[in-house]
Structures are given as C-alpha cells and as structure tokens.
C-alpha cells in the first residue's frame, strides 16, 4: 500500500459543488492496484458520489479490513480519517467508532474474502445490529493479494485462471444482508457508473445499515473466459432491476419515466432515490420478493443489479440502544463522572 501523494493542480474551470470543492478535492493517493482493477472504478464512483452530495470529507471515517479492496480507502477522500484494521474485522471497528460519535459518516470498504469468509461473523452481526454505515463489498470472487485463490463468493460453475474447478457453491451476500435486517441492499457493477453513483449517493444518505455488493472484476486473477466475475461475463449477464436516479433533498422531483413505471424511495435526509422499473415484479420495499428476485435471477444465470431492498423507516443501532444525541466522545468529566456524593451512597449500600 504505497503512499503516493498526488500533485494538486486544479484547473480553474473545474466544476465546483455546493461547498466550492472540485472532484479533485475528494481524491486520495495514487492507486497501487493493478491497471484496470474494478476497485479503482469504485473509488472514482465514491469520489463522484461524495462530490455530488457535497459531503465534507473530514466528517467521514473510511474503514477497511485486509486485502486489495481494503487498500482502496487510501485512494479517495484524503481529508478523511482512515482505519485499515485487521482481516475481516472492519465491522467491529466501525461499530465502536460509530458509538463514540454518531455524527460522522461511516464508510466501510471490504472484499469478498474479508466479508464472506474470515469476517462473515462480523458482517452478519453488523447488519443485524443495523449500524448506521455504508458497507461496500468490492466483490471479485478471488483472493488477489495472495495470488488468485477462490473466495466464497465465487460461483460454482466458475473455473480458476489455472483451470481448477471451484468445489463449493457461492455465498450471496445481498440475500444474507436482507435476511439479517440490513435496511438498504443493492448490487451493482464497477463498470456501470451510471447505476453505481446514484446507488452510492442513496446508500450514503440512508440512515441504517446500507449494504452494496459491487461486482468488481480482478483483471489479474479472475477476468478469464471461464470466470463468472469477469468484465465480459457481467456485461453479458447483468440483469438490471431498475435505472436509478438520485434526487437530493429540496430539489423538485422530475423524472422522465412514465407513470406507473417509476418507484420513489424516500431517504432519511429528505432526498429520494427514484427508480425506473425495468421489471414488472419489482417492489424494493418487499423483503420476501427481493430475496425471490435474487434467487430467480441466479437460477436463470443472471446477475441481478440495482436497488434490491430498502426500508426507509428503519431504526439504527443508536436508536435501539437509546444513546444520547450528543456524541459520547464530546462528553467531559462533568457530564460523565457521578461524583463523590453519589459514591457515598453506593458505599452505604454495600455495608
């Protein structure tokens, strides 16, 4: 994870957002991932989403585990604190951090090895606790840093670069996330920026556990013609549920979709995710149907993408634990220490 600082020369005519910042202000260090890696496209989609949402970078905490995906936080949002933790354990770090200060935006970047194998327990319980964060799995079906072993999201019919058969069925993380109680679940493809950016914007605006499974081909170890996570395969088999459009709060909703073909998902901050329905049987607020849609498309050899499920009114962990509105990390001794008088009472009760 070499740390290369990019030169910062802004062209005077670069587009600026509401904060007066350009896209360049949301970038990170130069990526050291392989040329053509899907993860870099995701990083640039994150830059784009944060730019468009006028997010203050320093109010974001970007967290990751271990692996190629987990290097990615170094490549966007230079002004954010980052935490590259241990393999599969990003969710617990995020949980503790979010309890300390709920006012930051928590963006977790994980991979399929990190989330579907070593860290599956933490993924499961983080979703179940409905931590208010955006959790991205950059899913390439392989262990890149250790040179191409199968991961648990690799499809049974997929072969390795070296022709080995994959012996075990894949774990479908979005289905799991829906079952576990995640309140925003989407799948996308690193090569489909038009779909990915609005979904990212919606995920970042959603209150609760937002999960994004992003198929992100590994150009070095899993992009061959017997892989089901290659650029070609995904392009051919991508079955998009909807064409998303993100409408920020306060903006008039203008969609070009015909009546009856669009669905609006309201988000916590007042913004809307407007979806053009591509499938008749589509209702993103119906949990059971969402799982059915995923399984049917799997059976048909397709990769279902788009917003799969959303519960706009979900509670998050802080609501459930009834934690105060003032961030815990801002409370001082006067607010936290009960003092000597109370202690005398406790002493008296222990006699």
């Amino acid at each position, binding site marked *: 994870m070499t740390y290369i600082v990019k030169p910062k020369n802004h062209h005077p005519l670069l587009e600026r957002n509401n904060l007066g910042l350009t896209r360049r202000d949301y970038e990170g260090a130069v990526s050291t991932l392989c040329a053509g890696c899907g993860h870099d496209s995701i990083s640039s989609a994150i830059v784009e989403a944060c730019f468009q949402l006028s997010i203050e970078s320093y109010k974001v*905490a970007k967290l990751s585990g271990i692996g190629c995906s987990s290097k990615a936080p170094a490549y966007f949002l230079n002004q954010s604190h980052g935490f590259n933790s241990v393999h599969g*354990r990003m969710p617990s770090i995020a949980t*503790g*951090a979010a309890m300390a200060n709920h006012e930051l935006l928590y963006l977790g970047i994980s991979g399929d090895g990190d989330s579907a194998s070593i860290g599956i327990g933490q993924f499961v319980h983080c979703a179940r606790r409905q931590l208010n964060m955006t959790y991205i799995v950059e899913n390439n079906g392989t262990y890149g840093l250790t040179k191409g072993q199968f991961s648990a999201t690799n499809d049974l019919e997929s072969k390795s670069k070296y022709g080995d058969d994959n012996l075990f069925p894949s774990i479908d993380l979005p289905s799991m996330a829906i079952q576990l109680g995640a309140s925003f679940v989407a799948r996308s493809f690193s090569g489909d920026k038009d779909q990915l950016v609005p979904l990212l914007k919606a995920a970042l605006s959603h209150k609760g556990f937002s999960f994004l499974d992003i198929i992100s081909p590994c150009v070095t170890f899993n992009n061959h013609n017997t892989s089901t996570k290659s650029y070609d395969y995904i392009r051919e088999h991508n079955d998009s549920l909807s064409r998303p459009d993100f409408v920020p709060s306060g903006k008039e909703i203008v969609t070009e979709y015909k009546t009856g073909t669009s669905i609006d998902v309201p988000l916590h901050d007042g913004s809307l995710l407007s979806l053009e329905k591509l499938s008749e049987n589509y209702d993103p607020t119906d949990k059971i149907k969402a799982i059915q849609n995923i399984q049917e498309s799997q059976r048909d050899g397709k990769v279902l993408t788009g917003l799969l499920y959303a519960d706009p009114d979900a509670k998050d962990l802080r609501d459930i634990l009834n934690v105060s509105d003032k961030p*815990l990390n801002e409370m*001082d001794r006067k607010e936290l220490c009960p*003092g000597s008088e109370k202690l005398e009472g406790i002493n008296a009760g222990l006699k």
Partner: protein
Amino acid sequence: MNKINSINDFVIKFANVNGSGSASANQMFAKGVFRSGIPVSPKNIFPSNIQGLPTWFEVRVNEKGYLGRRDGIDIFVAMNPQSYQNDVSELKENGYLIYDSSWKRDFGRDDINIIEIPLTELCVKEFTNPKQRLLFKNLGYVGLLASILKMDKDIYVSLIEEQFRGKEKLIEPNVKALNIGYNYAEENFKDFCEIQVEKSNKTDGLILTSGNDAAGLGCVYGGATVCAWYPITPSTSLAESYSKYSEQLRVEIGTDKNKFAFIQAEDELAAMGMTIGANWNGARAFTATSGPGVSLMSEFIGLAYFAEVPTVLFNVQRGGPSTGMPTRTQQSDILCSAYASHGDTKHVLLIPSDPKECFDFAVEAFDLADRLQTPVIVLLDLDLGMNDWSTKEFEWDDSREYDRGKILSRDDLDEIERFGRYLDVDGDGIPYRTYPGTHPEKGAYFTRGTSHDEYAGYTEDGTKNAEMLSRLLKKFQTASSLVPAPVFNQEKNTSSMGIIYFGSTDCAMQEALDNLQEQNIKIDAMRLRAFPFNLEVWEFIEDHDLLFIVEQNRDGQMRTLLMAEGGIIPDKLVSILCFDGQPITAEHITDKINAHLSGKPVMAAS
C-alpha cells in the same frame, strides 16, 4: 466431647446443590457477620453448571481482618448428601456438623459435634408451595446459625427486608423461614456451640463487595462510555456491573437517553474491535474477558499496540490452559497478557489486590491508556472478581480531572505546519493524535497495522520500521514511570530475604507475613502493582540476596517476566506456587518458605 471454642475467628463451609438458591442465603449469612462488625471473606466454590451439581461456599470470619483462605473447617453446613463423605472429612476435630436430619445419617466420626435439624420436615410442615419448601431450607439454616453463634437475629430480618424492598409480600415467608431454624436451635441447641460471633467495630470504613462490581463502577467513574463484551466466566459480572451502575448514574435527565453504549458483541474479537474503534474515535471504551477471550483478542491487541490506539481490557483470570477450570481461580495469564499478540509487543498491566484497588485501577487504566496511547490490561482473577471482599470504602476526589493525553484540537492543528501522527515531538515516545472530524484540512491520517512512517504513511523501509519499534520501546520506558509503584510492607529493608507477590494473593500474604514474624523469620515484602516494572522494583530485587515469588500458576510466570525484563539470575528467585484453582493460603506460603530455609527444595505443588 470437646468442642472448638472461638470468638470471631472461624471458617464455616456450606455444601449445597447448585441452582437451589443456596448462594444468596449463604451470602446473607456472611453479610450478617459483616454487619456484626467482623470482617468476612465469603468464597463461592461453584461448578461450571446451572443446576444439580455440588457447590460449596466458604466463609472465613476473622476479627484481625485476615481474608485469605484457611484450610480446616470449623463448622460444616452439609446440605448435599452427594458430597457428604468428602465434606465431613474436611471438618476439623471437635468441629461442628450441621445437616438435614429429616433423613438420619451416621457419619462415622466420633470426634465431631453434630447438630441435627430436620429442615425438610419443618419446611414441608410450614409451607405448602413446593418451591418454597425447597428454597426456604436455606434460610432455615441461616436462622439456626444466627442462634447457635449467638448473633443478633434482627440483622438478618433487616437484610431480608432490604432484599425484598418493593416485593413486600415476600418478606413475611422469608422471615418465617429464618425463624424456623432460629427457634428450632433455641429450643434444641441452646449454648451447644462454643464458637461465637460477638459484635465488634472492625468493619468501620469497610464495605462488602466484589472486584468485578468495583471495577465496573470504576469504569463509570473513569468516564468510560462504551463497553463491548462477550459473556465469559468469571468476567461477565464486570460488564454487568458497568451496565447496572450506568443505568443508575448515567441517564440524561429530560431525554432519558443513555450517556453510554453497552454492546454484547458476537465474540471476543468483535468486543475488542469495538473497544478499539470507540477509543480511536475519542470515547473511553473497555472490554472485559478471561483467558480464552484474551487469546481470541490477541490479534487486535497487537493492532492497538502498533497503531497506538488507547484500549482498556480487564482480564479476570480463571484456571487454564484451554477451557481449563472456568469457575476456579488462577493468576496464569501474566505472560499472555504482558506479551499478547505476534511480533514484538509489550503491554501495560495493572494488578489490583482488592476491590477498592479494582475501582481505583479501573479509573487509572483509562488515564494511562489515553496518556500512553496503548492497550492497558487490568489483571483480576476469579477470587478477586467474583467473591465479595471486606474492602475499604470507595473514594473519589471531585477535583480529579481525566487525563486524555496528547490530543490536538482544531485550534492546535491551525498552529501546526504539518501534522505527523507518529512524530515523537516531546521525546517521551508518545506522539500526538487527532480524532476524526476535527479539522477540514488538517490532521487526517490513516490508522493501520502495517509498517508506517511518522506521517502514518505505509512504508516498507526497514529502517523506518525499526525506528518505529524503537520508539514504542521508549514509550514503554515512559510507561514505567507512570504506572502505580509497588507497595512495601516495611519502611526500610532489614533482611537479606525478600518476598514478591501481587494481586489477590495479598490477603493470604498479610497473614503469612505476621506468622513469619512470630516465628522470628525476618523477610521484606513487596507487592507488585504494575508492568512495566518501575525502578523501585529493580532496587528491591537488587537489595536482596534471595527472593521468594508467590504466584498462583504452575510456571512461575511473574518470575519469568522479572528474569526476562530485568536480566535477574534465576537462582536468586524462588517460586512459591499454588495452582489447584483454590485461593492460596497463608499456611501454604509459610510452609514453603520454612521448607526452603530448612534446606528442602520447594516443590511446585498445590
């Protein structure tokens, strides 16, 4: 028949079936003695089981304040026929055996005094509810004890009233049960027993509580706002104590919202991850666990050490290795705590010896963790953590501020040209840190467990990494001047022999030292309270030719740590060990010392 005769100095043991409600009755007996003004040390010796297996409860009553375990039972309340045979053999000659004579029994000993009470028959006669018939046998024998020991029965009536405050209906049948035993003894065993509890004032300024309860309260006073934990005996009640006291003391007036987050994690790994995440983000957070949990947390402990994130961990030690003896006590996680995790790591340890110190060190742990930006592990053990001790009252100085260590604010960052997370600006090995969300343009950095330079950037430059490791060592040296100093038994060393001990062994040691003095054996004593060892520790070792090191593990782990860290020659350090899962006794310590001095080798034994 001869009878043991004593006032305010005896050991009573209860044998029960676990899950029968006996522990709270036994606890009540102990508290009654405490309220009579005599220090007690109740010890619950329980199986890793919920219902049906034998369980014991030992109470040492000692006016001098000796709270360590003592072998030899003066009074045995044998309520479990499953364990009669062994139980009766533990009773001292001329001791007293109390048993439920609803089923008469010959115990085959003619050197003991037997007190028969048909508890089952009496309870069946007095109560109709089958549950009550069983449960109230326990209070029945408490009543009997109050009578034969000539205690003030009203103390127990008050304890019952306090226990059932808010559930007043339950007071009457409980008092009735107490009276069943009391009245039976008054009629049948008046003046029979020559052991007595006489009112005293030796508990003035003392409270009766456990180390876990005290440490949980200390975390509230120390400003901890996040507790992430996973259930494991014997640490569970520490986290629960934090939760209990937080609910009493930390709820916002007006909103009813919590000024704390209490999270039961999915495992110890997650518990430690949450603790690190919260501390990284500027909250004071802790977790509590026992040996197996420490093994699981070790990877994360290494991350916190290397990335320099403050972290507080309570390790309430139990019998190991592996799953070991989950409900028995040991001090056998010293090395695995001091050096937890792979690579070169060393951690600050705090070792309290009684509940009052558990409270104090809990508070201290957060200050040290923040000041040093490193994991601080507080080592308790099952005996200290789960049993009630007669301990000094908790104290708090309202002028005490929290030491949050070196944290840069937005204004501080404005003054700095370039922030370097791991720059040793002050030369003490401790760098400055920033919380996420502090400044729009400055102070952001990447926390990582990979090798990094002063600016937190990834590096594979071996020299840089070696520099970082050396600075961490320097920081550890700084730690040795900040951690609690050892406690000495003497103002000035007077002997060529010394004894080193720590933690819950303290109570047996006070008694052992008095006994040695009576035997005219001169020996200086030092109680360790922290790692890294500070200068006074090394001076004490330097000052003596021979040192006994008393610890409750097989391998002499503290001895190993002293040898490793101070280059002490092995011959100088003689181990006195106890690792049978029972708290060490004073007699064990004095016997081993006497054996060594008479030329017999000290065997590792129990």
